[in-house]
């Protein structure tokens, strides 16, 4: 199945000249793009917010420059040549802000309304639960009852373009915050609460998100990806999820499969269709298809995965996964290879 390529594009901020940084908001025009940027929207929410942001940046820059020019004039001009006194205070301090802020408020209310109503009848509901420091993901079929088991994954969401998606976000331990700047604003994940984030993706691609609420030791290494597919690709992807995983024929992969169980991986992880059903740790049923490893912390391939299994505590100290450094190299590679074969 054709998946969008692993993003190799590098953001192009380097040419932004230092002087530009200091000269007001104009520098923002220099086009920053990135897989995790509010300035490079790929969804309805982020695009709408960016439009309003530009109103704020330009309006703010104009007001700022005016006030600064006035201040410079005030200190340079002779007192009798500076017109008005209290008039400035009343006009600039009261009338102007009241008028502009009222207009801004009306604009804001309309925007907020558009954003929260974007998925009134969602085509897809995804429950995302934050753990220290990874993301549990469950897809619910539209109209499915609570008894129907959800399709489980971790650290990566796959969503279609053009269809409203409803995310129900919660947390299992401490407060986290779900943020994919390219698609939408953030929503906190709070123990005891289920918050709703409605979004509509517009451009296919791979986007990066990150936990935005400080959540302890490895907050910095709690990222994830959102893979946005064309609707028909998405449907195909979803349909393929029902194939259970079986013990592979290939001897190397089979060795990896066996190692998974002899090492006790199933006590935390689940792989669809196998005896591994634990929900303590991330579901690994499509491990090989994911862009990132250890919650978006590293690139995902056989080498990095083997390294992660052997030294998880060294790479992301304090996370729940022990370092499995007692396996021989061959078994370790086989295990990693088998996991990478799960797509």
């Amino acid at each position, binding site marked *: 199945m054709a998946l969008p390529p692993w993003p190799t594009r590098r953001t192009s901020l380097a040419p932004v000249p230092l002087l530009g940084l200091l000269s007001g908001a104009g520098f923002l025009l220099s086009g920053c793009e990135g897989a995790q*940027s509010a300035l490079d929207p790929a969804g309805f929410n982020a695009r709408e917010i960016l439009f309003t942001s530009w109103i704020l940046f330009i309006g703010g820059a104009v007001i700022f420059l005016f006030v600064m020019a006035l201040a410079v004039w005030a200190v340079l001009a002779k007192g009798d040549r500076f017109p*008005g006194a209290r008039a*400035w*205070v009343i006009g600039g301090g009261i009338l102007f802000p009241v008028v502009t802020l009222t207009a801004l408020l009306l604009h804001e209310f309309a925007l907020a309304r558009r954003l929260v109503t974007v998925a009134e009848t969602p085509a897809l509901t995804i429950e995302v639960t934050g753990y220290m420091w990874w993301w549990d993901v469950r897809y619910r079929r539209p109209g499915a009852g609570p008894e129907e088991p959800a399709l489980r994954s971790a650290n990566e969401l796959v969503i279609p373009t053009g269809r409203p998606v409803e995310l129900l976000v919660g947390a299992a331990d401490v407060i986290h915050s779900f*943020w994919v700047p390219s698609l939408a604003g953030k929503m*906190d994940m709070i123990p005891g609460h289920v918050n709703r984030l409605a979004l509509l993706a517009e451009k296919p691609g791979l986007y990066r998100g990150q936990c935005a609420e400080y959540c302890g030791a490895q*907050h910095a290494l709690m990222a994830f990806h959102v893979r946005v597919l064309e609707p028909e690709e998405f449907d195909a992807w979803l349909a393929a999820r029902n194939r259970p995983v079986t013990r592979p024929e290939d001897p190397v992969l089979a060795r990896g499969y066996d190692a998974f169980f002899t090492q006790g991986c199933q006590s935390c992880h689940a792989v669809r269709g196998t005896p591994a059903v634990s929900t303590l740790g991330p579901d690994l049923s499509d491990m090989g298809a994911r862009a990132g490893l250890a919650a978006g912390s590293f690139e995902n391939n056989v080498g990095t995965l083997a390294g992660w299994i052997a030294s998880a505590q060294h790479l992301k100290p*304090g996370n729940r996964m022990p370092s499995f450094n007692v396996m021989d190299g061959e078994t370790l590679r086989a295990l990693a290879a088998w996991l990478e074969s799960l797509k």
Partner: protein
Amino acid sequence: MTLQHEGGPGSGHGGPAHRTLPSPLPRPEEELRTLQRVWRMPRGLGLLSEVNNNVIGVMYIGAALLFFVLAGLLALAMRAQLAFPESALLDHDTYNQFFTVHGTGMMFLFAVPVVEAIGVYLIPAMLGARDLPFPRLSAFAFWAYFFGGLSFFASLLFDAAPDGGWFMYPPLTSYEHSPGIRADFWLLGIGFIEISAIAGAIEIIVGILRTRPPGMTLDKLPIYCWAMLIMAGMIIFAFPAVILATALLEVERVFHWPFFIAERGGDPLLWQHLFWFFGHPEVYIIFLPGAGLVSMMVPTLARYPLIGHNLVVLALVGTGVFSFGLWVHHMFTTGIPPLSLSFFSAASMAVAVPSGIQVFAWIATLGKGRVQWTVATWFLMGFLFIFVLGGLTGVMVAVVPFDWQAHDSYFIVAHLHYVLIGGMVFPMFAALYHWWPTLNGTLLSERLGRWAFWLMFGGFNVTFFPMHITGLLGMPRRVYTYPGDLGWNLLNMVSTVGAFVLALGVLIVLADMARNAFGRGQPASDNPWNGGTLEWIPNGNYAVRSIPYVTGLYPLWENPNLSREVQAGAHFLPGAPTDRRETIVTSPIESKPQYLMPMPGPHWGHFLAGLFTALHFLCLTVGWYLISILPALIAIASVIWWLWDLDTGEDHPPQEVGGGWRIPVYVQGPSNHSWWAMVVLLLVDGTAFACLIFSYIFLWTVSPDVWPSDPAALPGIGWLGGGLLLLALAALSLWWASRSLGADRQAGVRLGLLLCFLFLLAAAVGEGYAQIQTGLKGAESAYGAVTYMLVAWQGFHMAVLLLMIGYTLARSFRGLIHARRRVTFDNTMLMAGYTVGQGAFALLLAHLFPRLFG
């Protein structure tokens, strides 16, 4: 009111305005010598026992600057770590401790203390008062803060520093996810600033309302004092929320009472509401004093009275009021319903109006005047640039959808540093250069000052401006590392370079201060910038030679001879008539002399109390609960020692203070300054209790299911009736004690106080037992936790009353209380009366609420 006023018609209201000066010249020679003798500063180690605001204020500012430097060094370490992606300079654990201590230190151990410290130093001088009304309280607050702050920073050395971020959101910071003592160190650091902030607020409010010079009616109050008055009022209503929040968190950590644990009916959002109900006003608690300093310096430097003075006062009041309606804008992403968000969004924008009024008032004043270019002027221009930019990004983040992107990203890091460094640090450095001559009669170097300004201004913008973009490019705050392929590398490197430039600027200021302290400062004239307010009158440790009669907002501009008259002793209280430290207490609105307050002098009690209070809390923090009793006892004994000789009664006849005013040396009842302080303290206390009631109701709305639905699970209604009866008896006993004191029947006073305490105690213990016998457990559910918290809150007040009533009884037995010397008794009565009311309210809530809504 026992004001005795002698003098013909016209000499009272008109006072000395008609060139008849309040005190006839020349003054007798021994008068100044007496003044100097009673106000003499102790030498050597004895300086630690001094209470004079000139000394305490300077030490206070010095300590705050020390913590500023320490917290700043942590920021440099963090910037060094973030200079490169995936850098290994600091590990995650160190980094997380650093940003927590940086934020906590800057907000709680630098910003709030330094604005209060500047107030301690400047307010009496601006009011022509000899000192603040409770000098030993300020000194105690300073020492507790100093030792507490040092131990807070020292936790870094033992790898025991808090690592939960400066707003310490549970559940991350509760016992399950933060075992060990790190989070407790945060609570320790906060504990001290709670003590010193409230002590400072009491000083400032009573000082500004009751120790103004004659003639300085409220409309002639210098604008800085307005700012400080409002700031102190905000402390009174904001700090209780964080006091309660920290108490709840500590109780949850120690006893596992689930206030913030969702599985047992608690809610992490309760912490956020309480914390930000404090935390947002906190920002203005820091900014208003800065704005007040600016509003003083701008007219002086522009040589023109502040334009729109009354509007600026209104703007300060408006900021104070609005700031309590903004706290939810820190919670726009917590899933609160959009309708509520709209309200808080509108309120957050509205607060831009008072800031706008001030900015345009300053600009218009600069425009009308002829500006003198001093270092302070440069810092003020830098302040305008930074603050206006920070204010504009503030409007941006008030727009809810924009905040959904900006929140908790580097955009917010940029915004908050723009408003805090712009709104407070730049004005503070301007003030440092501006008012330095009042400290030792010399100037800081104008040349070094300009270097410092340009390095700080440039460094600041290079550091923080790029962070707006870093945040929009998706970088969250509080990350110890970041991947190299997201476009953040250059921006972070630029920020790091800027931070070191900024630090270099601060270093130059410190070097300049050190150079000056070693006698290299250029001597200044008495009033080098030609300021118009009273702090520019030359003074000694006794403050001004005589307390001036004030006729306008800029007394020194309106009467160019005023400074000479004051120095010659021609105004009020030119000496020390009762041969001790004293100042004039005036009426709150019209500022008419009411009585001559004796002021406590140097003492070791407050110093020891501060030291041992810090030790007590330190012992609690590291879990030495039993040992902690010892320093607590020493601290209490020290407080009693410092108090014992105060409340002297009318030990001198009424004294002549000039202008025909003969005023008593003691008043009691509602015009006594100590009564005022007690009322302010009870406002704090009552607000904390109101926050507890809010918590009770909030937890019920979140988890009504953990509230008992069956009245049989509650204590019988008889417990409520019995409790209320005991409280009524306590009130009756208190009333009887008060009446007995009026008739000088000491036996009645003693028995009444004792009974009052016993009835209150019986009510508190009875309520505790009533809840325990139902089998309710605090750790079981949020209902149990908050119900026992009501009991514990009343229990804490019983401990306070044990001390206060015990102290009052002791004074009664020593014959130090009688019908005309009852200030101590009155204070105890206020606290006991409040405790009765609070107890009744708690009982009604605990027993009726579950029955009505369970």
